């Protein structure tokens, strides 16, 4: 399969990071919404995100209801669920656990170019310490992108549009 690019919008990024920072002692997850870019088939634009839970991530009923409502709401704007975001409870845990993998697989069934983003807690920790206020910021990739080997998709590049600190 060819290379895919994902463009994460500022809005989506901020919502997810703030959600993770608010619930520092818990695992959090969220859903990424977007579409395949109309100009270029190999680019997926992640336009928005919805933070989901910060407790009992593994329970089905809440997840089902929220996914139904999110799809309904965003399909009116032409966006669909394109990915899943997860942040682990422990500081040094960089592995995607089975719940995240299951949800990611499920989304993949409906949208083959699905992305799963895992928050790198160490980089998140370093975020507020940067005192640089210049508008053109060095992109700090806070997310580690996971390859979804089921579908042979390899994510080559993660661009964060209009990123600022």
């Amino acid at each position: 399969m060819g290379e895919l690019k994902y463009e994460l919008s500022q809005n989506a990024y901020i919502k997810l990071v703030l959600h993770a920072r608010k619930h520092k002692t818990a695992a959090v997850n969220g859903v990424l919404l977007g579409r395949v870019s109309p100009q270029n088939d190999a680019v997926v634009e992640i336009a928005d995100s919805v933070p989901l839970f910060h407790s009992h991530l593994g329970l089905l009923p809440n997840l089902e209801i929220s996914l139904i409502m999110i799809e309904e709401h965003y399909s009116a704007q032409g966006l669909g669920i394109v990915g899943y975001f997860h942040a682990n409870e422990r500081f040094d845990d960089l592995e995607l656990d089975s719940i995240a993998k299951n949800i990611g697989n499920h989304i993949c069934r409906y949208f083959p170019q699905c992305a799963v983003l895992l928050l790198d807690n160490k980089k998140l920790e370093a975020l507020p310490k940067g005192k640089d206020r210049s508008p053109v910021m060095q992109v700090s990739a806070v997310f580690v992108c996971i390859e979804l080997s089921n579908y042979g998709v390899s994510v080559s590049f993660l661009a964060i549009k209009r990123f600022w600190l």
Partner: protein
Amino acid sequence: MDCQCLDVAKDCIKVLQKQFPESKRVGRLEGILLEAKGLWAEAEKAYSSLLEDNPLDPVLHKRRVAIAKAQGNFPTAIEWLNKYLETFMADHDAWRELAEIYVSLQMYKQAAFCYEELILSQPTVPLYHLAYADVLYTLGGVDNILLAKKYYASTIDLTGGKNTKALFGICLCSSAIAQLTKGRNKEDKESPELQSLAAAALEKDYKQRAPAKLLLLTSALKSLKTS
């Protein structure tokens, strides 16, 4: 220590030590400080030595479980917590913690057992009914979902009809049961009234609290009924 001001914590503990030289509580605080620094082995040693003197101290047992959990060593944490619960069966927080660990590891049957214990000892707390129903629904299978529906109903009963999660749960259960028993020609034991009542209650709630989202709710409920 929660704010990672470990020096301040260390100073406070020193002062306490001077004041109360042989205190158990100061000993525990020292152990917690070692945990905060990430020195797991030392913390474990500290707790083990304290436990030799006080084998029946629940807090020390729980700190050991916390160490195992913080290291990501879930099997050990579960083992320690189970041992702890054999002695201290009435510790509800411990049962809840165990249930949450099981859910995060997707061991739903064991989590269901924990919630059953909680409901047995505290039958009037709606939180446990709701969590139990969630786990049953996640387990799946017609029998579990039927049981989940009953527990959602009891949650609604206990909370006077105000628990949104339980109302949604009822709608989900009804649509799941309808899907699972589609092919079979069973007599319709389940009255559709419960689902329509739950849906009506949800709509009323949304009208009061979030009228902007009412349309979203109605379309979501419709898709549940038809799916």
